[in-house]
C-alpha cells in the first residue's frame, strides 16, 4: 500500500488534473477521508452534481480570471526558483527517472507536481523534501488562499485549506 502522505499528495493532485467526477466523489466517501473533509467543511461530501463540478473546474482552472493551478501564476519575489526552473526540474526528473507524467498539463501545474511529489515520497523521500521546497512551497500558499476565496464548490475549499497545511511556505515549516 502506498505511503499515507504520498497518497494524500496524489489525491490532492487529482483535484487539479481533472474535474471532480463520480469516481473521485466516491473515493472521498472512504470514511477517513469523508470524516476529515466534513470536519474541515461540513456538508462538502454530501451531494454531487457532475455538470456543476465540470463548470466549476473550468471556471477555476481553465479559464482566465480563475485560479490557475500553475506555479508560474503565483511565484513572487526573487528568492525562489522561477517557474522556468520548476518546468525544467520536472522535465529533467521525467527523463532521469523515466516517469509517465500527465502530458495534457504544463509541467509546473499542480496536477503534475503533486503526483510527482507523491512518487518521490514513495521512492526517494530525501529528494521529495527538496522537491517540495523547490517546486511547491514557494507558490502553494498564495494559490491556496485565492482558491479558498474563489471556489464555490466546497470540496475545492477543503483542498485549498489542506494545501498550505501540507506544504507550508518556505521558511515556515
Amino acid at each position, binding site marked *: 500500500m502506498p505511503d*499515507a502522505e504520498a497518497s494524500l499528495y496524489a489525491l490532492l493532485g487529482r483535484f487539479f488534473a481533472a474535474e471532480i467526477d463520480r*469516481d473521485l466523489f466516491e473515493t472521498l466517501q472512504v470514511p477517513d*477521508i469523508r470524516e476529515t473533509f466534513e470536519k*474541515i467543511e461540513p456538508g462538502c461530501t454530501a451531494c454531487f452534481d457532475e455538470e456543476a463540478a465540470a463548470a466549476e473546474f473550468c471556471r477555476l482552472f481553465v479559464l482566465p480570471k480563475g485560479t490557475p493551478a500553475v506555479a*508560474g501564476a503565483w511565484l513572487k519575489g526573487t528568492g525562489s526558483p522561477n517557474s522556468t526552473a520548476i518546468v*525544467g526540474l520536472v522535465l529533467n*526528473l521525467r527523463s532521469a*527517472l523515466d*516517469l509517465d507524467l500527465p502530458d495534457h498539463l504544463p509541467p509546473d501545474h499542480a496536477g503534475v507536481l503533486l503526483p510527482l511529489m507523491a512518487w518521490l515520497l514513495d521512492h526517494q523521500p530525501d529528494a521529495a523534501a527538496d522537491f517540495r521546497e523547490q517546486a511547491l512551497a514557494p507558490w502553494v500558499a498564495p494559490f491556496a488562499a485565492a482558491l479558498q476565496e474563489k471556489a464555490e464548490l466546497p470540496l475545492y475549499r477543503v483542498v485549498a485549506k489542506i494545501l498550505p*497545511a501540507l506544504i507550508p511556505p518556505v521558511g515556515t515549516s
Partner: protein
Amino acid sequence: MSEIKRRDLLKIGAGAALAAGAGAAAIPLVRRLADSAPPAIDIKKLVAGKLDYTRAKAVPTICFGCTTHCGVIGWVQDGRVRKIEGNPLDPNTQGNICSKAQGMISYTYYPERLMHPIKRVGKRGEGKWKRISWDEALSEIADRMRPLREGGVPEEFVFHYGRDKTKGYTKRFTNAFGTPHRLNRRSICSSNRRAPLMSFYGREFEWETQDFENTKYIVNFGGNPMEAYQGGLYMMHRIQKARVDGGAKMVTFEIRPSATASVSEDYFPIMPGTDGAVAFAMIHVILREGLQDEEFWNRWSNLPLEKLRESVKDYTPGWAEEQSGVPAADIERIAVEFAQAAPACCTMSNRGSAKHYNGVQADRAIRTLDVLVGNVGKPGGFCLSSLRGWAGRYGQEGLPKLSQPGPKPPNPKPWGIGEGYDEEAFKKLPDFVQERVNNFPEKWKKKYFGELATPSEYPLAWHWYQMRVGQLVYPYIKEGRQKVSVYMSFTLGASYGYPEANVAREVLQDESLIPFHVAIDIGYGEQAALADIVLPEATSLERWDHHSTNNYGLVPYTGVRQPLVEPAGETKSVQAILQDLAKRIGGGMEEYFAFESEEAFYKEWYKNLPVSWEDFKRRGIWYDEGREKDYELYERPLTDAELEGTAVEGDLVMKGGKAVGIMMDGKAVRGFPTPNRVINVYDEIWPEAAKAVGLPADDVNASPIAVYDTVPEHRDLGEDDYIFSTFKWNVHTQGRSGHWKYHAEIVHTNPVFMHPETGETLGVQEGDSVRVSVYRPKGHTYRGGEDGIMGSFENHVRFLSGMHPKVVACSHHVGHWEHGAVGASKNEATGPAEGTGPGAGNADPQAAPEKIWWSKGRGGIGGGVAINDALPINPCPLTGGQNWYDNVCKIEKL
C-alpha cells in the same frame, strides 16, 4: 475548522492510501516506464538555472508577434523557450527584432492561457464552460458541419480569421469543404492602400518595397514604420542607416508626433484626410518647375503628361495649405527637394493617408509622385519586389517553385446564373443583390461569391483579389444576406477590435443568426467568450508555417516557421486541428489532408529549395545570394523561354490571351504586371465600379485619375467639432497583446491625447476626464448621414504639443474585459502574480512583485477603455476599406 492538524492530513492520506491500494481509479499514481531501479536523484542539481548558451539549443523560426514576420532564433533550454534573438540570416530584418518578439514568450507561457478545448454549458456569452476532450469537440463540430457539405449548402459554413499566416492552409480547408466564406479583416487594415497600388502596378504589387537603404529623400504620408507598420521592422533600420550614414532626409505628415515623426527631419501635423492635397500640390510644383522625369513618364505611364498637368493646375501649394495646414512654402520646398533627389527618393504611405473617404485617391496622388520623378524600381527609389508564394509570379522568375503539397482542392464555383456558377446559393440572395450582380461585367461575375465574401456594393474589394469587407460581415448576417449555420472564428477579435464591435457581439450572441460558433484561438478573449466551443491553438513558437514576403533588401527570400517546443498543455496548431476535422467530416475532404505529419507537409512544400531540409531548418531562411536585386524589373527583356508561344498584338506581347510583356524600343520587355503592362495612373476601373454600384460620377472615389475632395464629414466642421483618430504603440498589436504582462506594463491605458491649445479651448487640464462622443459618417457609406451620436467613451486627457489642434487621438489596444487579469487590468488581492518572461536570469520572470500595479485597485491609472464600440462602421465606397480616421466627435469635460 480553525486549523488542520498533521493527524488530519495523515487520516486523509491513510484513506487515500487505502483507496489507492484498492485500485481506486480516482487517484492516478505516477508510474515509471522503465523496469530498472531508478537512479538516486539530487533535486538541486536538476533545477533548471539561468540560460546557459553552451547547453541551450538555438532554433531559428519566424516571429508572429505581429504581421511583419521576422526571422528569429529562439533559445530553448529545459523544455522552454527562454529568449528570442534576431536571425542574422534574415535579409529583411538583418538580425533586428522588436520588443514584441519577447512577447511571444509571454503569449506562450502566460498562466491564464487556454490549454484545453472547452464547451459552453450556460447561455452563450454567460461565461459558463466545461472542459471537453479534443475527440468530443471535433466530433461535435464535424457533426454540425458534415450535413452542410452533404446537403449542398457548404456556404453556410463561414470561416472568419483575424490573423492567418498559414499561407493558404486554411483555404485548403474551406475549399475542400466547398465554402467561399473564408473571410478576413483586410478592409480593417490595408485595403485602401493596396487597391491604389494594384490599380497602378497590378495584382502582383499590392505592397511597395522602397529601397530605403539607398534613398536620399523620403516623403512619408502617415506611415509609422518606427512604431507600427506591417513590415516596419524591415524598414526602420534601413531608414535610420540612410539618414545617419547616408544623409537622407525624411519628411513626415502625421496627426501626432509619432515615433517616425520624431526621427524625421521635417514633421508636419496635418489635418486628417488632407494628405492627398499635399501630394497634389507637390505634383503641381514639380510640373511647374519642370523637375519631372518626362522620359520615364512617357515611357511607362498611361496618361499623357499634359492631362496630369491639367488635372493638378488648381492644386497649388496655397490651396493645399488651406486644406491641410501645411505651409505652402514648405510644400514648395519639399516638392523640389524630393524631385531633385530623384531617382533616389521615395514616398511612403499607410493608413494615415489611406483610411479616409478620399484615401484611395490620396494614395493614387502619392503613387503618382513616384512615377512623375521616375524613381520607380530605381536604386534608392520606390521599388516593387517579389511578394509571397514563390509560385512563378512576376518578379519570381528563376526562383525555385514552392507550393503547398497536393492534392489541392478546387476553388468553389462563383455564384451566379449559368453553367459553371453556383445558382442555388445565388438565388437565395436578396433580389436587389441578384440584380446588381446580373448587371456586372463578366470579369466580376466570375469573382462573385456572395455578400459576405464579395459584397456587391464594394467590387473593388475583390476585383484584384479577395480583400473582403470584414466590418460588414455582422451587419450583413443581421440583415439576412447570408444564412450561417456554422461560424468558425480563427484568431479573430472582432467583438473587441472591429468598428461597432457591439454589433459583432450582438450578432455573435444571437443564436438565431449564428446557431453554432467555434472559436480557435490561443487565449480566451472577447471573441471566444461568445463561442459555443473554443479550441486552444498553439502559438507561433509551437507550430509550422511557410513564410515568404517582400524583402526591402530587394532579393526574394523564404523562411520557415518551425516549432521550438511542443504545443503547451492540450493546445494544437491550427493545421492539426483542421486536418483532424477534415478527416472527421470525411466525404472526400480527408483526401486533401492525408499527409503523415505537419513536418512532412512542410518538407514537401520546400522540396525544390537547393538546400537540404535539415540545412534549411538549421538556417531558417533561404535566398539566392547571387541573385540580382529587383531593380527595374519592368525593363528586363523577356527570356527566350518566356517568349515561346507569344505573339505581339499592338505593343503587347500576348500569351494565352494575356499580356506577358510589352515592346519597348523594338525589344520585348516585361513591363508591369498590369493588363496593359504599363503603370495605370489613369484607370477606368474606378468609374466602372462606381457606375456598377450607383455611386455618383462626381464622388471622389469614381474618378479615373486621382482627384481631391474634402472628406464629407469634414466639410462643415463646427468650432466644437474635432476629428477623432486612433494609433498604435510600438509595444502592442491591434488587439492581441493587451494581456502580455511586460508590454502592458509599458502601455496599459489610452488617454485622450490633444494639443494643449485644444485643452485650453475646451477648458480641460491634463488628467481631467472627458467624454468623447462620435458621430456617424457622411457620404456614401454604411448608415452614412444618419444624425446623432453613434457612441461615446470616457478617459483622461494628456497633452501633446505636436498634435494637430483639431485632432484628438487614443490608442486602441487596451481596455479588454476578457483575456485575464492583465488584459482587464484587474488586480484582485488574491489574483495571480501574472507575468511571463524570458527566464534568463535568477529573478523570477513570472513574478510581478507589484502585480498589476497600474490597476485602479492599486491606486493606478487603470487599464484604459475599449473605444471600438464608439467608432462607426465606415467602409470606403468601392474598396470597402474602413475609414477609421474620418470620425467627427464632440468632447465634454466630465
